[in-house]
């Protein structure tokens, strides 16, 4: 087990390096640059800027310098767009915000999604099933960019209960609408996966055997059925968690939470190479880490899987 984990962590290094090189090349091949603007800069001004950010060096040298600074100084460089701030500062400010509303949304989505899925599976073809499936389909077809304005219309404009946006250090009033808007569609997916997987497990032979032995329904569900039924859900949750805590552009844009999702998209539009790289590495690292975590969880839940 331990050697497996170490091996996986070791593989993460070349993976990240490839990610860096690949993103670096892709980024620089996009038309335009960080300093192209509506009012084109005179060549001498542009030359000064490019020299300051080492853009005149050959690409391999830029990548080398970048990797060196990241590895040895944990310095992701200065932002090209926001002249007063570094990438470290931008991530340190935006990531906790996204992590907060992302993790809460994740918890809400998992709890509500599993509850809905289980209700539907255990009461198959009953009113409860239809209701749960109905809710999850409704939540699925309402994308968050539709959900967000509707929530603001109801809770801010009509009822006046909640502020229409902002973060304010993460006070609960500011969290409610982003969490609802972000979690609903994930909740719906979890509910659907949970329902079908639990249905399948409930029809399998070992559950039938357990029933025949007269084990109470509750024990069957929580002791025997739930664990295997969770497997497909868990493989969905790993990447989903990364997606949720690295932010949603729609949520950041619409609720001006100041999270990292918006910073990522802005950096791409502004060709802010440094910010773009920094957030790419963050997402890459988290993805690798949580994939590993899912694999370990798998082995723990399913004794058939050996690491």
């Amino acid at each position, binding site marked *: 087990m331990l050697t497996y984990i170490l091996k996986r962590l070791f593989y993460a290094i070349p993976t990240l390096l490839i990610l860096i090189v690949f993103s670096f090349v892709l980024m620089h091949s996009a038309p335009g640059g960080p*300093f192209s603007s509506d*009012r084109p800069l005179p060549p001498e001004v542009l030359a000064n800027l490019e020299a300051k950010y080492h853009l005149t060096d050959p690409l391999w040298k830029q990548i080398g310098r970048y990797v060196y600074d990241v590895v040895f100084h944990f310095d992701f460089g200065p932002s090209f767009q926001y*002249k007063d701030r570094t990438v470290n500062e931008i991530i340190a400010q935006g990531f906790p915000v996204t992590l907060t509303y992302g993790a809460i949304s994740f918890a809400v989505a998992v709890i509500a999604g599993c509850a809905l899925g289980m209700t539907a599976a255990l009461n198959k073809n009953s009113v409860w099933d239809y209701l749960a499936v109905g809710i999850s389909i409704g939540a699925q077809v309402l994308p968050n960019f539709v959900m967000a304005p509707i929530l603001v219309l109801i809770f801010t404009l009509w009822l006046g209960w909640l502020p229409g946006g902002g973060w304010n250090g993460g006070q609960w009033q500011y969290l409610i609408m982003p969490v609802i808007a972000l979690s609903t569609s994930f909740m719906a997916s979890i509910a659907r996966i949970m329902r079908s997987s639990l249905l399948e497990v409930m029809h399998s032979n070992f559950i039938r055997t357990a029933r025949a032995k007269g084990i109470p329904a509750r024990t069957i569900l929580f002791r025997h059925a739930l664990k295997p039924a969770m497997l497909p859900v868990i493989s969905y949750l790993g990447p989903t968690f990364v997606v949720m805590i690295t932010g949603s552009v729609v949520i950041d844009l619409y609720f001006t939470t100041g999270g990292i999702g918006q910073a990522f998209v802005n950096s791409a539009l502004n060709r802010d190479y440094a910010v773009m790289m920094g957030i790419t590495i963050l997402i890459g690292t988290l993805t690798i880490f949580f994939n590993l975590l899912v694999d370990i969880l798998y082995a723990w839940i399913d004794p058939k899987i050996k690491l």
Partner: protein
Amino acid sequence: MKTPAILSMTTALTLCATVAMSANHPVTNELLSDEQVFTYRIGDEFASIDPQMSEDVDGGAIVRDIFEGLMNQDAEGNLVPGVATHFDANEDKTVYTFYLRDDAKWSDGTPVTAGDFEYSWKRFVDPATASPYSWFAEEMGLVNVSAIIAGDMEASELGVTALDDHTLEVRLETSMGHFPLMTTSEPTFPSPRWVVEEFGSSWTKPENIVSNGAYVLSEHVPQEKTVRVRNAMYWNNDATIIDRVEALVISDENAALTRYLAGELDRTEVPTGQFNSLSKQHPEEAISFPRSCAYYYFINMTDSAHPALLDQRVREALYLTINREVITNAILQGGEFEAYTFTPEAISNFVPPENPAAEMTQAERIERARALMAEAGYGPDNPIELDLLYNTSETHRKIAIAVSQMWKQALGVEIVLQNMEWKTFLEARSNQEFDIGRAGWCGPYNMASSFLDLMSSTHVYNDAGYANDEVDALLDAAKTTDDPSESFTRIEQVLAQDVPILPIYHYAGVYMMDESLQNWPVGNVEQKWYSRELYFTAE
């Protein structure tokens, strides 16, 4: 038993304070609101509030509040004293001397001196600073500026010298009558040397910053909000009424409008096409006023363009066929102005030339355009197909569709719409990979030359390859004349003949603004506003 006594005393004091706060405006005598907090929307996080680095409109407004330059603008855009009380110039307007007030202080109590300006201007052009706005220093024409930016000379050679603590001498390479106007631009504002040197690029953080304006930066949460509060050290702090200003970053203008309607904002922009309905529902709050900005299409006149575009008659036909009324009244609906000249009429001292096209009816324009096309040899049997390049935006798309339909119906010109993401668009434009391209321009100062300079054959913005010797000569001459308005009128006349660009409309500032917020400078076409001039009346 002491507590109640203390409590009642506190209550009494609070009451006194509250009563004392309800004051009347010193000039207009209007009853002022107790709460003087101005909250407004900005569309994007500003790039920097370091005066010498500042380059965007929203950052500029914050810089104007927390710093103060030599001169300011009043509500009409006229020059009024800032840190300098007055200035004089030598006869040929190549040397300006600014006289600084002796009561101006930085927020840490240090006096503001001419040396602070000398330091900041040199910092502005220093290649080590690498300011993206340093081209503006070249427009200011300071002695040696180009050589310094190019790295051929030390920044210390710049034509600016503090003669003493309160006298600043500025030397220019050529005579320039409108130079003092440029000192209202943010990059010319002073930076505190001792703070910049201590904290480097993080000197503008709220915990480090020292500034000399009516406000100081108290809080900055990137992508969320920026808060500024009164600066007790400001020389004219007694005249400031607004206590606190909050700029909230809200990218989506519809989200911003909802939050305005919910009472969270005092000012926001009106999304395209919604002005009419909003002004019916909220007549006191929806406002529209002229801005010094132009929306236009420019025509590629280099070798890479469609050959038909090199024919003046074709360009004039395209110019005539655009029905500007449809665009301003049916698409934009925000009180924008139909444009037949590049320079907006709102620009001071600008007299538009007589333009027959502007007087004709649309039917007459189309008739004339068809005749021109036939003369040039193009028509239904020899149609033209052109690319129209614009950057991604709902408004640009609507206008491009409308204009291409007008051209197609009237002239049979086929248009291929090319929608590009902003930076890709800029690249395509500078590589001349287009036939007709969209552009917008806001003059950096209130003079026609801030627009017409773009038509000079050497201007960096001249991607379309337009060159006319007469225009170049007139522009050069205008720099040194006292009243160049005739030259500007003549240039517009030449432009109307040559048609290198197709002006479409001139912008309007279209806002929703709280009706108790007073003194917004709607007459300032550059929209240089200062929070210290605003106030809220009691409702």
